[in-house]
């Protein structure tokens, strides 16, 4: 499917055919499996060192599941996750613990991802304590350093999360994620729960940290405007599959999947003159249930371009055009006509 770049030192993360199925049980005592929720249904992508991959999708797309599978909060049903050469999907025990140090995560809800009973100093120190990062004093110093790095005053160290605003809490979460110097940070909707004027602050901070610490990001969001600002490459997910993967500017200029096109046209732009000129593609119908995924192309039930073949045959996720632009559509060359994206 994808060019194998395992040997190259540049690729930090390579995911191949990742699947995550949740079984559904029925029965009182002996529980039978009656079906599966196909949260991730065969996903492949790679991220180069120092790059940011944006993962975009709506609810039910599986993007949060991908994040959780990468940090092994869930164990993948199938597939490979090559991180710096080692397959995370099958690691266990100590080996997994060691890998865990290099991958950290920032969660979406700053009000829920910090334990309300811990001081923020304990929260930030926790990964260092668990992985025995240094002496008590060294850890203490590093906590203060981290607070400074994320733009919070060191005097805040012994306060509790509820005393902070959403934006500040997210900064604390970022400080915690950086504590043991990871190489790869997964940011799961880091600004979605924040006020508009605070989002820019946190986004700028994430950018600055990426430069400062040579981080590689997987940036997950449903907000295409934010992702456009932040990512180098973007993957669009729908119902557990990646439907399109391309360099940022190319995705926005020449989308090759009807879902991407519809998504782009649906995003409101804060400019009345531009809004007036736009034509919206309104998708029909509702998102199918992930228990009952449509045959063939997952998107065909709502696709304005769907044909007979789309119902029967699942399109392959393959490079179109110049080789770095992937899409899963039988008619990908017809997607971008003369309408403005």
């Amino acid at each position, binding site marked *: 499917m994808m060019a194998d770049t395992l040997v190259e030192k540049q690729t930090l993360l390579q995911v191949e055919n990742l699947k995550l199925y949740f079984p559904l049980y029925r029965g009182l005592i002996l529980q039978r499996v009656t079906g599966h929720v196909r949260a991730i249904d065969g996903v492949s992508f790679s991220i180069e060192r120092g790059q940011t991959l944006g993962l975009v999708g709506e609810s039910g797309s599986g993007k949060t599941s991908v994040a959780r599978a990468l940090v092994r*909060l869930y164990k993948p049903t199938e597939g490979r996750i090559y991180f710096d050469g080692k397959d995370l999907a099958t690691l266990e025990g100590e080996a997994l613990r060691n890998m865990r140090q290099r991958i950290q995560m920032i969660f979406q809800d700053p*009000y829920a991802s910090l334990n309300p009973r811990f001081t923020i100093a304990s929260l930030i120190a*926790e*990964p260092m304590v668990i992985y025995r990062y240094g002496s008590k004093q060294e850890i203490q110093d590093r906590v203060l350093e981290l607070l400074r790095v994320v733009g*919070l005053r060191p005097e805040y160290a012994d306060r*509790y999360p509820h*005393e*902070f605003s959403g934006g500040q809490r997210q900064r604390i979460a970022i400080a915690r994620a950086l504590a043991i110097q990871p190489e790869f940070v997964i940011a799961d909707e880091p600004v979605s729960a924040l006020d508009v004027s605070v989002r820019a602050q946190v986004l700028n901070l994430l950018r600055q940290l990426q430069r400062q610490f040579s981080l590689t990001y997987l940036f997950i969001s449903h907000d295409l405007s934010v992702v456009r600002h932040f990512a180098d490459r973007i993957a669009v997910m729908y119902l557990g599959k990646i439907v399109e993967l391309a360099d940022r500017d190319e995705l926005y200029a020449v989308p090759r999947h009807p879902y991407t096109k519809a998504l782009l046209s649906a995003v409101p732009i804060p400019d009345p003159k531009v809004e007036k000129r736009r034509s919206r593609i309104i998708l029909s119908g509702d998102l199918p249930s992930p228990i009952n995924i449509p045959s063939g192309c997952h998107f065909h039930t709502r696709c304005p371009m769907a044909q007979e073949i789309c119902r029967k045959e699942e399109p392959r996720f393959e490079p179109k055009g110049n080789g770095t632009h992937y899409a899963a559509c039988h008619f990908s060359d017809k997607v971008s006509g003369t309408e403005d994206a």
Partner: protein
Amino acid sequence: MMDTPIEKEREDELEALLEVTPALAQKRRSQARIILDRFLRNRTATIGASFLILLFLFCFIGPFLTGHTNPNQPNLLAPDAAPSLAYPFGADDVGRDLLARAAVGGQVSLLVGLASMLVAILLGTAIGAIAGYYGKLLDNILMRITDVFLAVPTYLLLFVLSASFTNGSVYSIIVLISIFGWTTAARLVRGEFLALKEREYVMAARTVGAKDFRLMFRHILPNAIGPIIVNATLLVGQNIILESVLSYFGFGVQAPFPSWGSLISDGQGQINTDPKLVFIPGILIFLTVLSCNLVGDGLRDAFDPHMTER
């Protein structure tokens, strides 16, 4: 309105005094403080708590202060004495000082109530935590065991066990009562753990490398403590009643240690001639349990998450 002209420039410029990352507001009250304040505002709960404190003092320190230290000394010169200065609660049919008996009996009842509560809570929390956190088979097994304990008729089993296996000492009674007290706590803690283990801060802790034990006891348990404390308080009241019933029927703490329950059974023969023998321990039991319940309710309200931090 015309825009204000800025010819007189430097004069009206504002220094950037106001800081951009402001110091946090004065340190707000800690969680514990908030809860305490809220509890104290609840009048009935505070009354209950005060009563319990006074009762404690009365039972454990009172006798030494007032000199009524001898509950078992019969005084055949003053049978059924009415309340007087020498015998503030009067005396029973063989002249034993009722105040002393009530106080020492209280010691036993309170001790048993508290100690059995502690054992029950510890046991129940451990079981509930494991069941709720690990789920699946382990949860199933533990909960079915809990169901068995709940289905058994408490008093009957206690009577049998007490008669066959114990020697009537205070410690054995404590153990006995704890056998049944843990089930509610287990259920409660299991429910809390089931809910809390899916919280984002638990997931976040997992991604920074925390293992099961740490997650259970450093992360989840402190957040589940509210309902546990409430349950514990109510359990004290329940256990006191349980102990009293046991003692009433003679299966509890054996003579010579008085207990409120045995005081009642001792005095019930004279209920027509000398009702205070039954009345006094009965009232004490009633007030104590009532206070425990009031305190428990007050704590439940004080812990209400809608009123604490965001």
